């Protein structure tokens, strides 16, 4: 743990200026990840910039296109329990409530959820090599105890997974991330926000230098009639996913008009394969068709020594969750498998 100065930003432009002016500065909102990493000596900064006083980015608003804007500084709890989110985007609400604990959801913000770091054991152990923590030092997970690691989109440099639940739903819902930075404002499609490790695993996402997430936009279709979030983990609550699945379906009787499927716990970013969704369009909502879609999603999945179980687990979790999405009332607290 290092010492640091504490300053407050009162507006987005102010925060960007302060970050730009000091390469050792770190913005903080909820702080649930950054303070933890700082205590483990996994991150350090000489200035902590408190952005919680930026009041014009702390609300949830309806958009003219029928969508919803979630400001970056709204807490995960206030987002999950917001009446418009519960009513129109229950998939997002369920996914948020499957993550962390009630106390952490009361603290953590939407922007911070997108920016959280991996929970790879080796990333968290400063005594071991890790390309994400110390680029070029090597990946300890490749030949280590890699039971929780990725099966899709890995590289020889990093096999860590991205731990968010909220982001799995945001990926399925085709959300858009709004960013302000020194170069002005721009928007990034959710699928393009997080990165695969490649040979730059230290870069989790495409937030530009001195950039700030200001809000997340949800399109009009929230798949509120047929949806489900299922999270499989080592204990039934307050644990990161081994595999999680977000499903949204638009149905016409037994026929799938449109399907959305995103996976958590299997890759360096929420995993979505459009080909599987295209396959399901116009098909009957049956176990067999969902199994076929699962195989498309898991094409190219590669296991390491201890995480081979994840491939079959992911397939079964996809099928189970799609069947649950046909009966969303079957969902249980904590995104557990239905009875």
């Amino acid at each position, binding site marked *: *743990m290092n*010492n*640091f*100065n*504490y300053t407050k930003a009162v507006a987005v432009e102010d925060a960007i200026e302060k970050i730009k002016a000091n390469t050792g500065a770190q913005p*903080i909102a909820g*702080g*649930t990840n950054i*303070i*933890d990493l700082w*205590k*483990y000596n996994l991150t350090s900064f000489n200035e*902590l910039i*408190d952005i*919680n006083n930026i009041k014009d980015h702390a609300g949830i608003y309806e958009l003219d296109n029928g969508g919803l804007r979630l400001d970056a500084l709204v807490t995960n*709890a206030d987002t999950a*329990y917001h009446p418009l989110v519960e009513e129109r985007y229950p998939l997002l609400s369920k996914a948020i409530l499957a993550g*962390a*604990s*009630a*106390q*952490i959801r*009361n*603290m953590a913000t939407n922007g911070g959820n997108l920016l959280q770091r991996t929970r790879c054991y080796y990333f968290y152990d400063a005594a071991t090599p890790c390309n994400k923590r110390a680029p070029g030092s090597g990946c300890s997970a490749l030949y280590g105890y890699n039971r929780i690691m990725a099966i899709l989109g890995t590289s020889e440099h990093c096999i860590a997974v991205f731990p968010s639940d909220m982001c799995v739903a945001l990926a399925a819902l085709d959300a858009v991330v709004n960013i302000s930075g020194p170069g002005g404002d721009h928007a990034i499609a959710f699928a393009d926000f997080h990165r695969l490790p490649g040979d730059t695993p230290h870069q989790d996402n495409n937030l530009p230098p001195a950039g700030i997430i200001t809000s997340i936009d949800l399109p009009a279709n929230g798949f509120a009639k047929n949806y489900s979030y299922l999270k499989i983990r080592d204990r*039934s*609550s*307050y644990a990161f996913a081994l595999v999680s699945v977000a499903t949204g379906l638009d149905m016409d009787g037994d026929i799938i008009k449109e399907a959305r499927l995103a996976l958590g716990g299997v890759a360096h970013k929420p995993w979505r394969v459009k080909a599987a969704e295209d396959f399901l369009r116009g098909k009957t909502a049956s176990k067999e068709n969902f199994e076929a879609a699962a195989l498309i999603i898991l094409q190219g999945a590669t296991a390491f020594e201890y995480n081979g179980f994840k491939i079959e687990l992911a397939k079964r979790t996809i099928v189970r969750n799609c069947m649950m999405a046909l009966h969303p009332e079957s969902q*249980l*607290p*904590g995104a557990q498998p239905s009875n």
Partner: protein
Amino acid sequence: MLSANPNAISLKINGHTYDLNILPWVSLLDALRDGLNLTGTKKGCDHGQCGACTIICDGKRILSCLTLATMKNGSEITTIEGIAENGRLHPLQQAFIEHDAFQCGYCTPGQVCSAIGMISEGKANSRAEVKELMSGNLCRCGASTNIIDAIMEVKDGGSHE
């Protein structure tokens, strides 16, 4: 003079206002325990994994170990020391005794503060939901079943399920 000091903060804790001179890297948990001798709030893991340090800040249950005290300047905080009123135990404290809802007692202050926060959130309508929404508070003695019993009694005014 106080306003010129960047480390000066004011916290209202259990109804009393405390003016503190605190370095920016001190957690709220350490400020309570070491700075104010309010040792009822416990340090378990100090990393947001156990819930022992749960307190109520501006009406919401949060983890004091992952909170910097300076970031809560001006906030209203309730710790386990502020739960009882006029020498009478809070109904949850009484229910914990009656349901044998602790053994070593180390997680208990966090459990009680968390349960009070959960009840005021108003989102737990069944035993399964109470279990889920209390999962951030670990009890390594294994009293969790009795803890949920105690909370259910207070939440429902005595009826179970």
